[in-house]
């Protein structure tokens, strides 16, 4: 089965020098729920825009189900950061727009969802709260019925906890039915663990880590020991942090034999794994770059 999303040496340059994203190679199988994590300005949005066909790659290639994104528009759902929508349109008009612009539109789903959320269909979108607007944007995506890929750029930022859970449940129900993969960026690491089975970490325009979360956790160890122990160990350290005379490092290795005098090793939690790869505050010489 072809990948829902496949990037091969994908890069996008802004201006002459600045790369928003560089050398990105990853495969996302159908039906996966993928967390896209990275600090601000890391390249998450660039990657999502490339996958949605909004940007053309400067280097490499991106395909959705084997074809370039702009030829798969009806199979890709996309919600941009802050869920922009035409402020002067009424909610019902926005849904009508979705109906007229998408052949596979599920009208019943759209009207039912808006009704259940208690959003007045006659209200102008500009008068809605940020969360309500996000709900309308998400409704547009759900009713479009994207079959291959759903791309969400921090979709939950404006939602309250109940609305988050409600949306995620719906999203995953819909995607299980169609077999679409979901790729969404978020800062709320704790929330991602519960719903995602795949992880992509981006930093400084490069993909640092890609893979199934369980596999990734098994392939890493968090090791604590005396200050500056990684200097001598010679292990592939991802990042290390010294607090109160003890150095804790995230190390790439699956084996349990990775121990030494005074060292405690354990499988990292999801959060430790993500933060380990996001950490900028690495002592010089301890950083071991991992490119996926």
């Amino acid at each position, binding site marked *: 089965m072809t990948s829902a999303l496949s990037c091969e040496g994908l890069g996008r340059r802004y201006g002459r020098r600045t790369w928003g994203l560089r050398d990105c190679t990853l495969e996302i199988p159908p039906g996966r729920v993928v967390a896209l994590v990275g600090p601000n300005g890391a390249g998450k949005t660039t990657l999502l*825009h490339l996958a*949605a*066909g*909004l*940007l*053309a790659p400067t280097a490499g290639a991106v395909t959705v189900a084997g074809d370039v994104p*702009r030829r798969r*528009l*009806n199979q*890709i*759902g*996309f919600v*941009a950061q*802050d869920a*922009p*929508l*035409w*402020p002067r*349109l009424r909610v019902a*008009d926005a849904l*009508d*727009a*979705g109906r*007229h*612009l*998408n*052949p*596979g539109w599920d009208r019943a789903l759209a009207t039912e969802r808006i009704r259940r959320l208690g959003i007045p269909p006659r209200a102008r979108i500009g008068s809605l709260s940020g969360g309500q607007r996000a709900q309308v*944007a998400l409704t*547009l995506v759900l009713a*479009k019925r994207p079959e291959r890929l759903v791309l969400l750029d921090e979709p939950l930022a404006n939602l309250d906890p109940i609305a988050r859970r409600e949306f995620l449940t719906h999203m995953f129900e819909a995607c299980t039915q169609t077999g679409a993969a979901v790729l969404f960026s978020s800062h709320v690491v704790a929330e991602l663990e519960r719903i995602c089975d795949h992880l992509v970490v981006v930093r400084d325009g490069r993909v640092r880590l890609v893979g199934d979360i369980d596999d990734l956790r098994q392939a890493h160890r968090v090791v604590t020991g005396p200050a500056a122990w990684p200097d001598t160990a010679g292990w592939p350290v991802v990042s290390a942090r010294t607090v109160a005379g003890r150095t804790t490092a995230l190390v790439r290795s699956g084996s349990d034999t990775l121990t030494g005098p005074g060292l405690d090793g354990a499988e990292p939690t999801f959060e430790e794994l993500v933060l380990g790869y996001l950490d900028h505050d690495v002592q010089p010489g301890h950083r071991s770059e991992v490119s996926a």
Partner: protein
Amino acid sequence: MTWFIWRQHRWQTLWTLLLVALLYGGTVWVIARASLALDHLDARGCVSQAGSLYWDGSPARCGSLVEGFVKQYGFTIPVFELGVPLLMAIVGSFIGAPLVAREIEQRTQLVAWTQSVPRRRWYVAKVAAVGAVLAVAGLAAGYAVYQLQRPLSDGGVTASRWMWFYSGGLTPAGEALLAFALAVAVGAWLRRTLPAVGAALVGFLVLLLVTGRAVQILTPVKYTTGPRWSAPDDAWRWQADGDHAIPYHPAGQFWPLQLTFLAVLLLLAAGLLTLGWYATRTRAV
């Protein structure tokens, strides 16, 4: 797509049609009054067999009457000659500039271009639909002004219909489309609406002056011949009569030159819309 374009642009469309209707009303009013006044002068015997007013004041009783007519309707020349191209420029710029730029400012291009309609079709459909409305509005304005000049030209207030070359007939449609295309392209490049409106207005006036002058001078002309060296009254001239040959366009050239000018404006508009598409494709996200 059609429904969506109508939903997004219906107020612009209505405003444009309202403006053109006002222009229409104004011209009809002036035409009716001018025709009445001319009939009045005709009844007094101040209109010649050929249909023009006795300018030289003969017969004597006509002198002040003719002067009064000219005073009353002389205003129409600058008002319409300058007003109509300006109106077309304003309508075209204000409708064209937000077409792409407003979407970028609101970030709604991210929504519009991730629906199932490809970006190219979005652009072509929008430009074609809005451009068609502007073309109709421009043709209507041109027709109104052309009708307006007839009693006045016949009455002799405006020597010839060449005075109305840039404001009547086919040119307003071309002007509206050129201003629109320029505004679309500048908007897509600058990614901001208001600066695009300003730049499009200035750019349009420059383009209009340059192309208008070019069409006047670079097309085939006739030359005055001796011994009087003067061009006919209904000629289009841009040099003073002297004792040598000067170029001019005879009255029969009016419609051929209108078509030529329209073609030049439309070609420019098409080129600008292509640039606008290029910017939309490469710079708009």
